[in-house]
């Protein structure tokens, strides 16, 4: 094969890298600077609305990993089961969100927070109290558009790009 370029290709490449000296870096310095995540983020916890739940265990049946443990007993009031035990081992959870999709009563939500690192595996197990929704819980809008509307707009890196022409 013939080869007639005499370093023009290298020069072109050098000009690209040199041009980047004048551009703004794209790094986001994470703990100090944060990008707003998607409104539908499947953050790494599950949040549970105690009042809507009827204890039907659809979530547990849908879970592909089988990490939702639910124990219920019949209760007299309101055509519901009484949820005695509701536990998710988020260490095994793959955050696929299928349980949230499957819940026929909209009682289950993904969390909005994504910083749930723990020192022990045992601490990753969410029990009934930890999952129950409180005013402080950060609920993601995954499969719940009404919740998504309340969340801040996601930062998009594309918004920082300049469009030519």
């Amino acid at each position, binding site marked *: 094969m013939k080869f007639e370029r005499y*370093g023009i*290709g290298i020069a072109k490449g050098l*000009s690209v*890298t040199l041009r980047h000296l004048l551009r703004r870096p794209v790094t986001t310095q994470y703990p100090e600077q944060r990008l707003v995540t998607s409104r*539908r983020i499947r953050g790494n916890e599950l949040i549970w609305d105690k009042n809507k739940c009827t204890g039907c265990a659809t979530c547990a049946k849908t879970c592909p990993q089988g990490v939702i443990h639910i124990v219920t007993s019949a209760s007299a009031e309101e055509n519901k089961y009484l949820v005695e035990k509701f536990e998710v081992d988020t260490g095994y959870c793959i955050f696929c969100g299928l349980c949230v999709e*499957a819940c026929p009563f909209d009682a289950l939500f993904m969390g909005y927070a994504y910083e749930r690192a723990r020192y022990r595996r045992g601490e990753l197990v969410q029990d009934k109290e930890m999952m129950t929704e409180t005013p402080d819980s950060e609920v993601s809008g995954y*499969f719940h558009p009404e919740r998504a509307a309340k969340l801040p707009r996601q930062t998009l890196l594309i918004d920082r790009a300049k469009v030519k022409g």
Partner: protein
Amino acid sequence: MVIKTEPFVVNIGPVHPSTHGVFRMRTTLDGEVVVDMEPVFGYLHRGIEKLAEERTYTGCIPLTDRLDYLASMTNNFAYVLAVEKLARIPVPERAEYIRVIMAELQRIASHLIAVGAFLNDCGAFMTPIVYMIREREKILDLFEMACGQRLTYNYMRVGGVSQDVPEEFVPALSKFLKVMPGWIDEYDQLLKENEILLARAKGVGILPKELAINIAASGPVLRASGVKWDIRRADPYSIYDRFEFDIPTGSVGDCYDRYRVRVEEMRQSVRILKQALKDLPEGEVRSDVPHRLHPPVGEAYAHIEAPRGELGFYLVSDGSIAPYRFHVRAPTLINLTALRDMMVGWKVADLIIIFGSIDICMAEVDR
């Protein structure tokens, strides 16, 4: 005078900076020259085919995310196509368009990593891959907006997609499509004509056309060898028959051709995306499919043009809620068949870039 030399065995991998995962090449070297090479697989074998036999049809979708984790959308796509074929489920029009948009975005994202990693293997220290990851982040932003995750999307469902895209998706995507061609030009300016890259990649690791067909190579590897074969065109699935696009092919099938084919495919993907975005209809995105799907007894094979080649899912149903057999036709595993033929005779440095130019994802090879 002939200098008598003794070949020696070097294990490239499983832990090595450029084996793209945990691949092991048991190479026999004579000095720098590769005399023999035997691929060793299985370091990432998780038994996904067996796991799938114990899950519902919907529950298998997250498993497909974990096959080729650089192209999860297309994995979902191929799988749901197979289930839809098996259970004869219709897909709403809008869902078809969203699927195509996602698949093409995924192709760009995957090729960005493939090309960046290939150039990094060539020794262009970090620069191309950082530039390309910069653009990939923007695609991941779009995926995150639609499905809430950046890597394991779990977005497509049997009979549609899980949720409609939010309203800010379309403006963001059209902005991305406006700027992406400029970025691709910039990558080309960076290294396309670089003399050292030409010297390293041109004519190296040639996969001849006949051999490429015989080993059933697919995707950019097959096209780089000069075979104009794209399942999007040859066997149009979903709505690919509505779009205009070219099939870029290489001429000799060397590493450089494989690199060029990927870059050109990115441009074609942008072209498809522009058409799809223009025609995107309103309407439902999910047909009514029960959570616990019971497809009729039978079998189905659906294949799509994934970024790395022909990704096929072969499903056998026995009428229960779980697939009786779930087989993945992994393009990267089959593309590796001719690895030894391509490598023997070249130097250690070429071995790395030949391997890099095939663009594999070990999670899919070993499954």
